């Protein structure tokens, strides 16, 4: 763009750069590299044996409630308040390699992955904790592959998502004491009442919550996204506890614990802090 003094700076433009002549696909090697890269970036679902058994011959998993947590605080909330009750079986995991992911075929660390859990007594309730980064070109595929395994009739989807309060636009300046707070966005098929105010214009959601919500909107599945805007970048107990109002909505389908002790909460929050050794 042109600056005030007239010099031209190359800044990021919202236009997609058109690859004029390179699109001729003459180069076999380039084409092969592109294909291999695409295969490497493909999303893979690995289910546990009994889930694989249920999915055989084109069947879908009976699912009445799918709860997805995207981000460390959302995942810590579900881990501490719901999954800690030991009524849950690990049902599978999703692997999506990209430049920012640390898991994949190599290290299979629990903290950076997409892990699915199924309730032992009510197998139609499925939870997924997503703490790894899923790239923009993988979001659609992730969503389609997961929802392809779930039957969509009478399905209710709840998504918890972390976000920085810097991304929240409001005409009145938001001082830090109001964060963290929740905002909701739901599909047209969602008939229930969200536990927090709706996300005001001109704010939008992006990433995996948006991909899931788009899928549910187009396929008429009841879905709601609860986005928590926090002023803390990393794992934080205050942010985790701000998801508590959502428990009332989840409690219908699953047994909810009494509030976890601070030790339990600390355990989940500490595991995500180890990666940062910038300040020793």
């Amino acid at each position, binding site marked *: *763009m*042109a600056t005030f003094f007239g010099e*031209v700076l190359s*800044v990021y*433009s*919202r*236009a*997609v*750069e*058109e690859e*004029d002549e390179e*699109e001729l696909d003459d180069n076999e090697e380039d084409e092969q590299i*592109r294909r291999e890269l*695409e295969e490497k970036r493909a999303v893979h679902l690995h289910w546990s044996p009994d889930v694989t058994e249920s999915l055989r011959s084109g069947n879908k998993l009976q699912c009445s409630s799918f709860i997805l947590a995207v981000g460390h605080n959302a995942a810590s909330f579900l881990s501490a308040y719901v999954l800690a009750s030991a009524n849950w079986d690990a049902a599978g995991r999703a692997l999506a390699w990209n430049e920012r992911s640390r898991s994949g075929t190599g290290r299979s660390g629990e903290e950076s992955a997409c892990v699915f859990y199924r309730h032992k007594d009510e197998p139609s309730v499925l939870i997924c904790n997503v703490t790894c980064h899923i790239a*923009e*070109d993988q*979001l*659609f*595929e992730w969503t*389609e592959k997961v929802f392809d395994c779930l039957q969509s009739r009478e399905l209710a989807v709840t998504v918890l998502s972390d976000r920085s309060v810097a991304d*929240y*636009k*409001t*005409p*009145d*300046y*938001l*001082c830090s004491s109001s964060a963290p707070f929740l905002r909701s*966005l*739901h*599909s*047209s098929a969602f008939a229930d009442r969200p536990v927090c105010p*709706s*996300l*005001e*214009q*001109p*704010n*939008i*959601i*992006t*990433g995996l*919550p*948006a*991909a899931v*919500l*788009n899928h549910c*909107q*187009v396929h008429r599945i009841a879905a709601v*996204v609860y986005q928590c805007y926090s002023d803390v970048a990393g794992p934080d107990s205050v942010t985790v506890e701000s998801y508590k109002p959502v428990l009332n909505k989840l409690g219908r389908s699953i047994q909810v614990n009494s509030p976890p002790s601070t030790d339990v909460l600390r355990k989940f929050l500490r595991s995500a802090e180890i990666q940062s050794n910038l300040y020793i």
Partner: protein
Amino acid sequence: KKNVSSGFWPNFTHIILIRIWPAVAVGNVGQLAVDLVVSTLNMSRVGYFHTDCLIPMAGNNPYASCKDDTEELHTPAEVYTAAELKLAVLQIRAPILQTRSKRFRQQLVSWIKASGFSRTVVLSSSHAYQRDDQQLTPLRYLITPSLLTTSADALKELSWREMERMPAFPGVKDADAEPRLCIPGGGITKGLYTDSCAEDLPLAVLLLFCSEGDNIPDAFALVNHLNDWLHLLDGQVTLKYHFSCESAEFKRDMQVFKLYLYIFIYFFPDFSYQSQEPNRKWKVPSSWSLLFGSGIPPALF
């Protein structure tokens, strides 16, 4: 690979429709212009363009006018119609994934063909800093041969300029290099145009030279130019004259109407029917608020 699912799109092949969609290009001018069209004409959403080629995003109704319709989810690419104008609009709100732009173009082209639109208009933009000396006026158009046969007269009347072909290597005198079409910052515009020529589709591109920044004035400029051609706002004149297009009675009524209007303008020259005060005719959607961030913290001063 996922094909675009147009299952929600009703069968419009028996109705002649023109269609506008924006190319994701510099300044997002096309998208802003389409926002104005959808918002002003109160168009209703009829379908989703559900594709894996766009970056996912979601938000509440960007065209909400009252409390009742604010909580309505909107997706990255949606189709709106105004049946009385036989107009369909595809609004694309998210960037196209770089590795999938070719596939997205193919999906769009096959959708146009399947839907049978009588003509398609693409609203786009191009970098203002990469112009030739002859390109110092802002508006350009491109038109495929099949649309040129029907629209040549209208374009001549509007005296628009066709997008110039640029030499492949400026400054180097190379007799072999053909001047070629170049739309820097135009995203998929050029590809769409060339694909449409190859498929013999009636398509026109309307683009504006602009820079990144506050592109609202550019959007108004583009949409006013579009209106000069398509007369989308003719039904919105304050005298509230409703009519149906393409009937003999309409033509006769318009003659009478224009006569009265000219008489009116003669006596009241400040009242303008054409584009003298363009911005007042278009309704700005609620999603245009806070384009440059939140409110300023008072502690800053």
